[in-house]
Protein backbone atom coordinates (compact mmCIF):
# COMPACT_ATOMS: atom_id res chain seq x y z
CA UNK A 1 0.00 0.00 0.00
CA UNK A 2 2.74 2.55 0.76
CA UNK A 3 4.09 1.84 -2.73
CA UNK A 4 0.77 2.64 -4.32
CA UNK A 5 0.50 5.80 -2.23
CA UNK A 6 4.00 6.83 -3.33
CA UNK A 7 3.16 6.22 -6.98
CA UNK A 8 -0.11 8.14 -6.80
CA UNK A 9 1.56 11.03 -4.95
CA UNK A 10 4.36 11.03 -7.53
CA UNK A 11 1.90 11.06 -10.43
CA UNK A 12 -0.09 13.93 -8.90
CA UNK A 13 3.13 15.87 -8.33
CA UNK A 14 4.16 15.28 -11.93
CA UNK A 15 0.82 16.42 -13.27
CA UNK A 16 0.98 19.60 -11.22
CA UNK A 17 4.49 20.61 -12.20
CA UNK A 18 5.21 19.13 -15.59
CA UNK A 19 4.67 21.21 -18.69
CA UNK A 20 4.23 19.01 -21.72
CA UNK A 21 5.41 20.98 -24.70
CA UNK A 22 3.07 21.12 -27.61
CA UNK A 23 4.52 18.75 -30.12
CA UNK A 24 5.20 20.41 -33.42
CA UNK A 25 4.01 17.33 -35.25
CA UNK A 26 0.42 18.11 -34.38
CA UNK A 27 -2.12 19.01 -36.97
CA UNK A 28 -1.72 22.76 -37.02
CA UNK A 29 1.81 22.95 -38.26
CA UNK A 30 2.07 26.64 -38.77
CA UNK A 31 4.78 28.86 -37.43
CA UNK A 32 2.59 30.73 -34.99
CA UNK A 33 1.36 27.57 -33.33
CA UNK A 34 4.73 25.89 -33.16
CA UNK A 35 6.65 28.81 -31.84
CA UNK A 36 4.07 30.13 -29.43
CA UNK A 37 4.24 26.77 -27.70
CA UNK A 38 7.89 25.90 -27.94
CA UNK A 39 9.76 29.16 -27.65
CA UNK A 40 12.40 28.36 -25.10
CA UNK A 41 13.21 32.03 -24.57
CA UNK A 42 9.96 32.23 -22.62
CA UNK A 43 10.44 32.23 -18.84
CA UNK A 44 10.90 28.67 -17.61
CA UNK A 45 8.56 28.11 -14.68
CA UNK A 46 8.31 24.34 -14.62
CA UNK A 47 11.20 21.93 -14.27
CA UNK A 48 12.06 20.33 -17.60
CA UNK A 49 10.22 17.32 -18.92
CA UNK A 50 13.48 15.36 -18.91
CA UNK A 51 13.91 15.66 -15.16
CA UNK A 52 10.40 14.40 -14.47
CA UNK A 53 10.88 11.49 -16.85
CA UNK A 54 14.07 10.61 -14.97
CA UNK A 55 12.27 10.99 -11.63
CA UNK A 56 9.41 8.72 -12.70
CA UNK A 57 11.83 6.10 -14.03
CA UNK A 58 13.86 6.16 -10.81
CA UNK A 59 10.73 5.83 -8.65
CA UNK A 60 9.62 2.84 -10.75
CA UNK A 61 13.11 1.31 -10.50
CA UNK A 62 13.05 1.60 -6.71
CA UNK A 63 9.55 0.15 -6.50
CA UNK A 64 10.76 -2.82 -8.57
CA UNK A 65 13.99 -3.12 -6.56
CA UNK A 66 12.22 -3.33 -3.21
CA UNK A 67 9.46 -5.59 -4.57
CA UNK A 68 6.80 -2.99 -3.88
CA UNK A 69 5.07 -3.73 -7.19
CA UNK A 70 4.46 -7.16 -8.71
CA UNK A 71 6.74 -8.36 -11.52
CA UNK A 72 5.96 -6.51 -14.74
CA UNK A 73 5.07 -8.76 -17.65
CA UNK A 74 5.09 -8.01 -21.36
Amino acid at each position, binding site marked *: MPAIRTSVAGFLFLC*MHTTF*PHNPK*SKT*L*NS*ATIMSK*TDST*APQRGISLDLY*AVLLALILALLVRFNLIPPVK*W
Partner: protein
Amino acid sequence: MASAVTSARSAGPVGLARRIVDLIPGLLLLAAVGYAGKFIEQSIAAYTKSRHVTFPNIEYVLWAIVIGLVIANTTGVPRIFEAGVATYEFWLKAGIVLLGSRFLLGDVLHLGGISLLLVAVALTLSLSFMHLLGRAFKLKPKLTSLLAIGSSICGVSAIIAAKPAIDADDEDASYAIAAILTLGAISLFTFPLIGHSLHLSDKAYGLWAGLAVDNTAEATAAGALYSDAAGKVAVLAKTSRNALIGFIVLAYAMYWASRGEAQAVGNKAAFLWRKFPKFVLGFLLISLLATIGFFTKPQLTSLANLSRWAFLLTFAGVGLHTSLRELGKQGWRPFAVGAIGEVFIALLTLGLVYGADRYLHL
Protein backbone atom coordinates in the same frame (compact mmCIF):
# COMPACT_ATOMS: atom_id res chain seq x y z
CA MET B 1 2.11 26.87 -21.31
CA ALA B 2 3.77 28.66 -18.44
CA SER B 3 0.51 30.40 -17.67
CA ALA B 4 -1.23 27.04 -17.59
CA VAL B 5 1.19 25.92 -14.92
CA THR B 6 0.76 29.11 -12.96
CA SER B 7 -2.99 28.79 -13.10
CA ALA B 8 -2.78 25.14 -12.09
CA ARG B 9 -0.71 26.07 -9.07
CA SER B 10 -2.75 29.05 -8.06
CA ALA B 11 -5.99 27.14 -8.50
CA GLY B 12 -4.64 24.46 -6.16
CA PRO B 13 -6.39 21.10 -6.03
CA VAL B 14 -9.02 22.15 -8.57
CA GLY B 15 -6.39 23.13 -11.15
CA LEU B 16 -4.46 19.94 -10.48
CA ALA B 17 -7.57 17.79 -10.84
CA ARG B 18 -8.39 19.53 -14.10
CA ARG B 19 -4.89 18.94 -15.43
CA ILE B 20 -5.12 15.26 -14.60
CA VAL B 21 -8.56 14.96 -16.17
CA ASP B 22 -7.22 16.71 -19.31
CA LEU B 23 -4.48 14.11 -19.66
CA ILE B 24 -6.61 11.00 -19.13
CA PRO B 25 -8.43 10.73 -22.52
CA GLY B 26 -5.22 11.11 -24.51
CA LEU B 27 -3.33 8.68 -22.28
CA LEU B 28 -6.12 6.14 -22.74
CA LEU B 29 -5.97 6.67 -26.51
CA LEU B 30 -2.18 6.12 -26.51
CA ALA B 31 -2.64 2.95 -24.45
CA ALA B 32 -5.50 1.71 -26.68
CA VAL B 33 -3.59 2.29 -29.93
CA GLY B 34 -0.37 0.82 -28.55
CA TYR B 35 -2.14 -2.20 -27.08
CA ALA B 36 -4.07 -2.75 -30.31
CA GLY B 37 -0.69 -2.95 -32.09
CA LYS B 38 0.54 -5.52 -29.58
CA PHE B 39 -2.71 -7.47 -29.82
CA ILE B 40 -2.56 -7.60 -33.65
CA GLU B 41 1.06 -8.81 -33.58
CA GLN B 42 0.27 -11.56 -31.07
CA SER B 43 -2.94 -12.59 -32.85
CA ILE B 44 -1.20 -12.94 -36.21
CA ALA B 45 1.66 -14.88 -34.60
CA ALA B 46 -0.78 -17.23 -32.81
CA TYR B 47 -2.89 -17.74 -35.96
CA THR B 48 0.05 -18.47 -38.26
CA LYS B 49 1.60 -20.80 -35.67
CA SER B 50 -1.62 -22.78 -35.20
CA ARG B 51 -2.08 -23.10 -38.98
CA HIS B 52 1.62 -23.81 -39.58
CA VAL B 53 1.76 -20.90 -41.98
CA THR B 54 5.04 -19.07 -42.56
CA PHE B 55 4.42 -15.36 -42.27
CA PRO B 56 6.91 -12.59 -41.46
CA ASN B 57 6.51 -11.25 -37.95
CA ILE B 58 5.30 -7.67 -38.13
CA GLU B 59 6.25 -5.97 -34.87
CA TYR B 60 3.69 -4.17 -32.69
CA VAL B 61 5.75 -1.02 -33.31
CA LEU B 62 4.64 -0.87 -36.93
CA TRP B 63 1.01 -1.68 -36.12
CA ALA B 64 0.86 1.00 -33.42
CA ILE B 65 2.37 3.62 -35.73
CA VAL B 66 0.11 2.67 -38.64
CA ILE B 67 -3.06 2.70 -36.50
CA GLY B 68 -2.03 6.10 -35.13
CA LEU B 69 -1.31 7.41 -38.63
CA VAL B 70 -4.69 6.21 -39.91
CA ILE B 71 -6.54 7.91 -37.05
CA ALA B 72 -4.57 11.16 -37.34
CA ASN B 73 -4.99 11.36 -41.12
CA THR B 74 -8.62 10.31 -41.47
CA THR B 75 -10.81 11.36 -38.57
CA GLY B 76 -8.05 13.43 -36.93
CA VAL B 77 -7.30 13.45 -33.23
CA PRO B 78 -10.13 15.27 -31.42
CA ARG B 79 -9.10 18.14 -29.17
CA ILE B 80 -10.03 16.28 -25.99
CA PHE B 81 -7.20 13.77 -26.61
CA GLU B 82 -4.48 16.29 -27.49
CA ALA B 83 -3.08 16.97 -24.00
CA GLY B 84 -2.67 13.28 -23.19
CA VAL B 85 -1.30 12.35 -26.61
CA ALA B 86 1.32 15.12 -26.26
CA THR B 87 2.83 13.18 -23.33
CA TYR B 88 4.34 10.63 -25.67
CA GLU B 89 7.79 12.23 -25.54
CA PHE B 90 7.64 12.02 -21.76
CA TRP B 91 7.09 8.26 -22.00
CA LEU B 92 9.90 8.03 -24.53
CA LYS B 93 12.35 9.61 -22.10
CA ALA B 94 11.15 7.55 -19.13
CA GLY B 95 11.45 4.44 -21.34
CA ILE B 96 15.01 5.33 -22.34
CA VAL B 97 16.04 5.80 -18.70
CA LEU B 98 14.54 2.41 -17.80
CA LEU B 99 16.24 0.84 -20.81
CA GLY B 100 19.54 1.67 -19.10
CA SER B 101 18.90 -1.46 -16.99
CA ARG B 102 19.55 -3.61 -20.07
CA PHE B 103 23.07 -2.29 -20.52
CA LEU B 104 26.14 -2.95 -18.45
CA LEU B 105 28.10 0.24 -18.05
CA GLY B 106 31.02 -1.33 -19.93
CA ASP B 107 28.76 -1.90 -22.97
CA VAL B 108 27.49 1.65 -22.72
CA LEU B 109 31.03 3.01 -22.68
CA HIS B 110 32.13 0.71 -25.53
CA LEU B 111 29.17 1.26 -27.86
CA GLY B 112 28.57 4.84 -26.67
CA GLY B 113 32.24 5.63 -27.27
CA ILE B 114 32.09 4.20 -30.79
CA SER B 115 28.85 6.13 -31.38
CA LEU B 116 30.40 9.38 -30.19
CA LEU B 117 33.41 8.85 -32.44
CA LEU B 118 31.18 8.18 -35.45
CA VAL B 119 28.90 11.09 -34.51
CA ALA B 120 31.90 13.44 -34.43
CA VAL B 121 32.99 12.39 -37.94
CA ALA B 122 29.44 12.40 -39.32
CA LEU B 123 28.68 15.77 -37.73
CA THR B 124 31.64 17.54 -39.25
CA LEU B 125 30.91 16.24 -42.73
CA SER B 126 27.13 16.56 -42.59
CA LEU B 127 27.12 20.11 -41.22
CA SER B 128 29.50 21.20 -43.98
CA PHE B 129 27.43 19.41 -46.62
CA MET B 130 24.15 20.92 -45.39
CA HIS B 131 25.61 24.42 -45.56
CA LEU B 132 26.82 23.83 -49.11
CA LEU B 133 23.35 22.56 -50.06
CA GLY B 134 21.64 25.50 -48.40
CA ARG B 135 23.79 27.87 -50.42
CA ALA B 136 23.12 25.95 -53.65
CA PHE B 137 19.34 26.09 -53.04
CA LYS B 138 19.54 29.75 -51.95
CA LEU B 139 17.98 29.11 -48.54
CA LYS B 140 18.24 31.77 -45.84
CA PRO B 141 21.45 31.18 -43.82
CA LYS B 142 19.62 30.72 -40.52
CA LEU B 143 17.15 28.28 -42.05
CA THR B 144 20.15 26.35 -43.37
CA SER B 145 21.69 26.40 -39.88
CA LEU B 146 18.48 25.00 -38.38
CA LEU B 147 18.20 22.29 -41.02
CA ALA B 148 21.85 21.37 -40.51
CA ILE B 149 21.42 21.15 -36.73
CA GLY B 150 18.16 19.21 -37.05
CA SER B 151 19.45 16.64 -39.50
CA SER B 152 22.90 16.23 -37.97
CA ILE B 153 22.06 16.09 -34.29
CA CYS B 154 18.65 15.54 -32.92
CA GLY B 155 15.74 16.58 -35.08
CA VAL B 156 13.06 18.73 -33.55
CA SER B 157 14.59 19.06 -30.06
CA ALA B 158 17.80 20.45 -31.51
CA ILE B 159 15.93 22.91 -33.74
CA ILE B 160 13.85 24.10 -30.79
CA ALA B 161 16.99 24.44 -28.67
CA ALA B 162 18.83 26.34 -31.41
CA LYS B 163 16.05 28.66 -32.54
CA PRO B 164 16.26 31.21 -29.70
CA ALA B 165 20.04 30.77 -29.38
CA ILE B 166 20.68 31.91 -32.96
CA ASP B 167 17.68 34.24 -33.03
CA ALA B 168 16.11 32.54 -36.05
CA ASP B 169 12.66 33.42 -37.42
CA ASP B 170 9.59 31.42 -36.40
CA GLU B 171 8.95 30.73 -40.06
CA ASP B 172 12.43 29.25 -40.59
CA ALA B 173 12.09 27.02 -37.55
CA SER B 174 8.68 25.80 -38.74
CA TYR B 175 10.03 24.93 -42.18
CA ALA B 176 13.00 23.12 -40.68
CA ILE B 177 10.79 21.19 -38.23
CA ALA B 178 8.34 20.22 -40.95
CA ALA B 179 11.13 18.99 -43.25
CA ILE B 180 12.77 16.98 -40.46
CA LEU B 181 9.46 15.43 -39.40
CA THR B 182 8.54 14.42 -42.93
CA LEU B 183 11.92 12.83 -43.46
CA GLY B 184 11.69 11.10 -40.08
CA ALA B 185 8.36 9.55 -41.06
CA ILE B 186 9.84 8.33 -44.36
CA SER B 187 12.91 6.85 -42.66
CA LEU B 188 10.68 4.80 -40.34
CA PHE B 189 9.63 2.70 -43.28
CA THR B 190 12.73 2.80 -45.47
CA PHE B 191 15.48 2.07 -42.91
CA PRO B 192 14.31 -1.42 -41.90
CA LEU B 193 13.86 -2.36 -45.57
CA ILE B 194 17.39 -1.19 -46.43
CA GLY B 195 18.81 -2.87 -43.33
CA HIS B 196 17.24 -6.22 -44.23
CA SER B 197 18.29 -5.99 -47.86
CA LEU B 198 21.91 -5.34 -46.77
CA HIS B 199 21.70 -8.16 -44.15
CA LEU B 200 22.99 -5.84 -41.44
CA SER B 201 23.56 -7.34 -38.01
CA ASP B 202 21.34 -6.09 -35.16
CA LYS B 203 24.20 -4.06 -33.71
CA ALA B 204 25.25 -2.52 -37.02
CA TYR B 205 21.67 -1.67 -37.99
CA GLY B 206 20.87 -0.26 -34.53
CA LEU B 207 23.96 1.90 -34.64
CA TRP B 208 23.09 3.11 -38.14
CA ALA B 209 19.47 3.96 -37.19
CA GLY B 210 20.65 5.76 -34.04
CA LEU B 211 23.20 7.79 -36.00
CA ALA B 212 21.11 8.61 -39.06
CA VAL B 213 17.44 8.97 -38.03
CA ASP B 214 16.80 12.43 -36.64
CA ASN B 215 14.12 12.36 -33.98
CA THR B 216 14.65 10.20 -30.92
CA ALA B 217 11.15 8.70 -31.13
CA GLU B 218 11.58 7.81 -34.82
CA ALA B 219 15.11 6.46 -34.26
CA THR B 220 13.82 4.25 -31.42
CA ALA B 221 10.94 3.05 -33.58
CA ALA B 222 13.15 2.45 -36.65
CA GLY B 223 15.48 0.35 -34.48
CA ALA B 224 12.66 -1.60 -32.82
CA LEU B 225 11.09 -2.30 -36.22
CA TYR B 226 14.23 -4.25 -37.14
CA SER B 227 14.59 -6.24 -33.92
CA ASP B 228 14.52 -5.84 -30.17
CA ALA B 229 18.32 -5.92 -29.98
CA ALA B 230 18.65 -3.36 -32.78
CA GLY B 231 16.18 -1.09 -30.96
CA LYS B 232 18.36 -1.23 -27.86
CA VAL B 233 21.49 -0.23 -29.77
CA ALA B 234 19.61 2.48 -31.71
CA VAL B 235 18.54 4.09 -28.43
CA LEU B 236 22.10 4.03 -27.11
CA ALA B 237 23.54 5.55 -30.30
CA LYS B 238 20.81 8.19 -30.43
CA THR B 239 21.37 9.04 -26.76
CA SER B 240 25.08 9.60 -27.45
CA ARG B 241 24.10 11.90 -30.30
CA ASN B 242 21.60 13.77 -28.11
CA ALA B 243 24.31 14.43 -25.54
CA LEU B 244 26.04 16.70 -28.06
CA ILE B 245 23.10 19.06 -28.61
CA GLY B 246 24.43 21.68 -26.19
CA PHE B 247 27.88 21.86 -27.79
CA ILE B 248 26.55 22.26 -31.33
CA VAL B 249 23.93 24.83 -30.37
CA LEU B 250 26.57 26.74 -28.40
CA ALA B 251 28.90 26.76 -31.41
CA TYR B 252 26.13 28.09 -33.67
CA ALA B 253 25.07 30.68 -31.08
CA MET B 254 28.65 31.96 -30.85
CA TYR B 255 28.99 32.04 -34.64
CA TRP B 256 25.82 34.08 -35.13
CA ALA B 257 26.66 36.33 -32.16
CA SER B 258 30.09 37.03 -33.71
CA ARG B 259 28.24 38.27 -36.80
CA GLY B 260 26.05 40.49 -34.64
CA GLU B 261 22.91 38.54 -35.57
CA ALA B 262 22.26 36.84 -32.20
CA GLN B 263 22.78 37.65 -28.53
CA ALA B 264 26.18 36.79 -27.06
CA VAL B 265 26.30 33.75 -24.78
CA GLY B 266 27.24 34.77 -21.23
CA ASN B 267 27.89 31.76 -18.99
CA LYS B 268 28.82 28.93 -21.36
CA ALA B 269 28.74 26.19 -18.72
CA ALA B 270 25.20 27.21 -17.66
CA PHE B 271 24.19 27.32 -21.34
CA LEU B 272 25.51 23.78 -21.91
CA TRP B 273 23.74 22.46 -18.80
CA ARG B 274 20.46 24.09 -19.85
CA LYS B 275 20.58 22.45 -23.27
CA PHE B 276 21.87 19.09 -22.05
CA PRO B 277 19.23 16.32 -22.24
CA LYS B 278 18.99 15.23 -18.60
CA PHE B 279 17.52 11.83 -19.37
CA VAL B 280 20.98 10.78 -20.59
CA LEU B 281 22.17 11.04 -16.97
CA GLY B 282 19.20 8.95 -15.79
CA PHE B 283 20.04 6.31 -18.41
CA LEU B 284 23.67 6.17 -17.18
CA LEU B 285 22.57 5.99 -13.53
CA ILE B 286 20.24 3.04 -14.10
CA SER B 287 22.92 1.33 -16.19
CA LEU B 288 25.42 1.84 -13.34
CA LEU B 289 22.96 0.38 -10.81
CA ALA B 290 22.39 -2.64 -13.08
CA THR B 291 26.16 -3.08 -13.46
CA ILE B 292 26.88 -3.11 -9.71
CA GLY B 293 24.17 -5.73 -9.13
CA PHE B 294 21.63 -3.46 -7.45
CA PHE B 295 18.84 -5.36 -9.22
CA THR B 296 18.23 -9.11 -9.37
CA LYS B 297 17.72 -10.80 -12.74
CA PRO B 298 13.90 -10.95 -12.46
CA GLN B 299 13.91 -7.28 -11.43
CA LEU B 300 15.96 -6.39 -14.51
CA THR B 301 13.35 -8.21 -16.61
CA SER B 302 10.61 -6.15 -14.94
CA LEU B 303 12.48 -2.90 -15.66
CA ALA B 304 13.02 -3.91 -19.29
CA ASN B 305 9.29 -4.66 -19.58
CA LEU B 306 8.38 -1.31 -18.02
CA SER B 307 10.58 0.31 -20.64
CA ARG B 308 8.74 -1.59 -23.41
CA TRP B 309 5.37 -0.42 -22.05
CA ALA B 310 6.63 3.17 -22.05
CA PHE B 311 7.81 2.76 -25.67
CA LEU B 312 4.44 1.28 -26.60
CA LEU B 313 2.81 4.60 -25.62
CA THR B 314 5.54 6.46 -27.51
CA PHE B 315 5.05 4.58 -30.78
CA ALA B 316 1.30 5.16 -30.63
CA GLY B 317 2.03 8.87 -30.13
CA VAL B 318 4.40 8.98 -33.13
CA GLY B 319 1.57 7.85 -35.42
CA LEU B 320 -1.09 10.02 -33.80
CA HIS B 321 1.09 13.11 -34.12
CA THR B 322 2.01 12.75 -37.77
CA SER B 323 -0.27 14.65 -40.10
CA LEU B 324 0.81 13.83 -43.65
CA ARG B 325 -1.41 16.54 -45.14
CA GLU B 326 0.10 19.34 -43.06
CA LEU B 327 3.64 18.10 -43.61
CA GLY B 328 3.03 18.11 -47.35
CA LYS B 329 2.03 21.78 -47.28
CA GLN B 330 5.52 23.00 -46.43
CA GLY B 331 7.74 24.57 -49.06
CA TRP B 332 9.64 22.27 -51.40
CA ARG B 333 13.09 23.84 -51.07
CA PRO B 334 13.69 23.21 -47.33
CA PHE B 335 12.30 19.73 -47.91
CA ALA B 336 14.62 19.15 -50.87
CA VAL B 337 17.66 20.35 -48.90
CA GLY B 338 16.61 18.19 -45.94
CA ALA B 339 15.96 15.16 -48.15
CA ILE B 340 19.28 15.39 -50.02
CA GLY B 341 21.07 16.00 -46.74
CA GLU B 342 19.35 13.00 -45.11
CA VAL B 343 20.32 10.70 -47.97
CA PHE B 344 23.90 11.95 -47.66
CA ILE B 345 23.91 11.43 -43.87
CA ALA B 346 22.32 7.97 -44.22
CA LEU B 347 25.00 6.89 -46.73
CA LEU B 348 27.79 8.48 -44.75
CA THR B 349 26.76 6.86 -41.45
CA LEU B 350 26.19 3.53 -43.20
CA GLY B 351 29.78 3.67 -44.47
CA LEU B 352 31.00 4.61 -40.99
CA VAL B 353 29.07 1.75 -39.40
CA TYR B 354 30.50 -0.73 -41.91
CA GLY B 355 33.98 0.59 -41.08
CA ALA B 356 33.34 0.43 -37.33
CA ASP B 357 31.97 -3.10 -37.62
CA ARG B 358 35.08 -4.17 -39.45
CA TYR B 359 37.80 -2.35 -37.51
CA LEU B 360 36.34 -1.59 -34.07
CA HIS B 361 34.39 -4.88 -33.68
CA LEU B 362 30.95 -3.68 -32.59
